[in-house]
């Protein structure tokens, strides 16, 4: 059975590097995590405009304070569309192990409770964006784009993130004593 991704890491990596180069030439490098703040800011501005204006961070990232959609937000929206279309087209070529909402690796270690998986995924999401905003970027903005520009802060982010993530993963998947 096919267990490997549809395209190899070589092809995917080269395409991603070229895409980053193209983006840097046309507009600016790739980044994702800022757009979660932009989305929050857009919602907050609709629901509670005064709160949104007074919150220094939301006001700062209301996509240049006009509370609208910009290049970065369209990029993340594009990921949703491009990812979704490709997934629909190539669904039958995706390894079975990578399909569905309950990864088999997780089930083997933590059981088949959907509540447990989804609660952990939610908590993980909270930590991801809290951390990304504190650090000023995520895997795309800091690691891929930042290190490609040889930015000092992005090297610090890459090393710290990988060290902690590897430690956490090793702890989660430590061998359970029977």
């Amino acid at each position, binding site marked *: 059975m096919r267990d490997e*991704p*549809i*395209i190899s*890491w*070589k092809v*995917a*990596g*080269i*395409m991603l*590097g070229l895409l*980053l180069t193209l*983006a*840097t*030439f046309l507009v*600016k490098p790739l980044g994702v995590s800022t757009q979660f*703040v932009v*989305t929050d800011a857009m919602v907050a501005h609709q629901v509670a405009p005064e709160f949104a204006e007074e*919150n220094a*961070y939301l006001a700062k990232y209301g996509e240049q304070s006009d509370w609208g959609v910009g*290049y*970065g937000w369209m990029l*993340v929206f*594009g*990921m*949703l569309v491009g990812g979704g279309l490709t997934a629909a087209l190539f669904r039958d070529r995706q390894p079975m192990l990578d399909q569905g*909402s309950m990864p088999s*690796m997780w089930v083997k270690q933590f059981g088949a409770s959907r509540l447990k998986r*989804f609660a952990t*995924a*939610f908590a*993980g*999401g*909270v930590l*991801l964006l*809290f*951390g*990304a*905003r*504190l*650090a*000023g970027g*995520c895997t795309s*903005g800091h690691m*891929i784009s930042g290190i*490609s*520009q*040889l*930015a*000092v*802060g992005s090297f610090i982010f*890459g090393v*710290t993130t*990988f060290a*902690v993530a*590897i430690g*956490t*993963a*090793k702890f989660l*998947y430590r*061998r359970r004593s029977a």
Partner: protein
Amino acid sequence: MNTLLIGFLIGCAFGAILFLGGASSYRKILGTLLLRDMTIIKLMLTAIGVGTLGVYLLDLGGLANMSIKPAYVWGIVAGGAIFGVGWAISGYCPGTCVVGTSEGKLDAVFTLAGALVGAFLFSLVYPVMDAWLLQNANLGKITIVDVIGIEGVYLAIPFSLMLLALAFFVLKDGYGTES
């Protein structure tokens, strides 16, 4: 061409590459973090290797619209550590949870929802964080090129070749496999 349309098209390609390359797979991400399956780290090293070369070749012609993030050391270390825990427990990063959501994976949808909440929580504590972690030990928007002070491309070429060699020839699967 319109900047919004460019953003959308680049995003479409980005999402497609992440899906096709298996970056939205929990198995592949955890495989890399457990050092058993190096697919994703090799993908990232290749992307950065090609990207560094591309960006600094553009820069040579003055054509790179760079965007350097400030190096405020403590904020990045603290944020990176929190991010690392979130990455390992969800199996997604902010970009791949968007792609996972587009595939209809419910765990990715929950990660995406959590991410929106996490960004909101950060906006509430931003003034405190700004004073504590973002203003202190801030080295500014610096690159290794600034530190060493030579033409960027001379640094980019060897760095890029090193990453590509690491991905293509050095890294092997199965470091973390016991027994």
